[in-house]
């Protein structure tokens, strides 16, 4: 049933760094949230013309 289905049924892959251990999935989720946070701060908000005029 496709690559995604296959991927969801695999055993979690972990990476280690000394005492630190995290699954690739959890690492990806954290990176995704950081990217989302960054984009929310820098991307211009549509229809914010008034705000620009005032400046």
């Amino acid at each position: 049933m496709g690559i995604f289905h296959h991927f969801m049924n695999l055993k979690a892959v972990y990476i280690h760094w000394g005492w630190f251990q995290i699954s690739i999935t959890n690492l990806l989720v954290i990176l995704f949230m950081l990217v989302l946070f960054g984009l929310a701060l820098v991307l211009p908000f549509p229809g914010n013309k008034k705000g620009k005029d005032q400046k």
Partner: protein
Amino acid sequence: MSADIEKEMWTSKLRKGWQKNLPIEKLLPDTQPAYVASWIYLFGVATLAALGVIVASGLVLSFEGASWYHYSSVGHFVNSMHFWSVQFFFIFMVVHLWGKFWMAAWRGRRLLTWITGALAFVGSIATAFTGYLIQTNFDSQWISYEAKDGFNSVGIGSRFNVTNFGQMILLHVAFLPVIIGVITLIHVLLVRAKGVVPPIDAFNNELGERK
């Protein structure tokens, strides 16, 4: 007798307090200050939307039952909707939390907004955990048998028994969602009552209306 009549009734106290703190103009506003025009302010309502999908798909799962969502393709689909809306609920909530943290959005008597948010976060983790315990598959068996030692070691295993399916399913579908719902309602009403917090640099002049 006359003293009794003079004493204000709780209904009138509630009405006056409500009208003072949350008049209908504040509850359903049609404009917001200019600084609210940023993507970061959308994550609260995105969290709320995800919660809506969680509740709706969860209701369908409850009515159709485990044999439906384990074996039929539509059942798999609704089960996946429930799972993925939870993933996005947490992702949006964390970005929302980060945003409010860096805005120090508890300024101007908004501490209770922050606290109800934090309670919603902790309560959501408990709800998600009980959700993993009632999947009725080997995953949930594994999770509950790993978790029971942890709960027993802190002495609450007899009250909160993660291997008790009946207890976990009732907590997940009845008790915890109601708690999350009530906390979220208070959270959003507090935001409406206080208004969106001004940015940090605008604090001194904008917060002249500080209440």
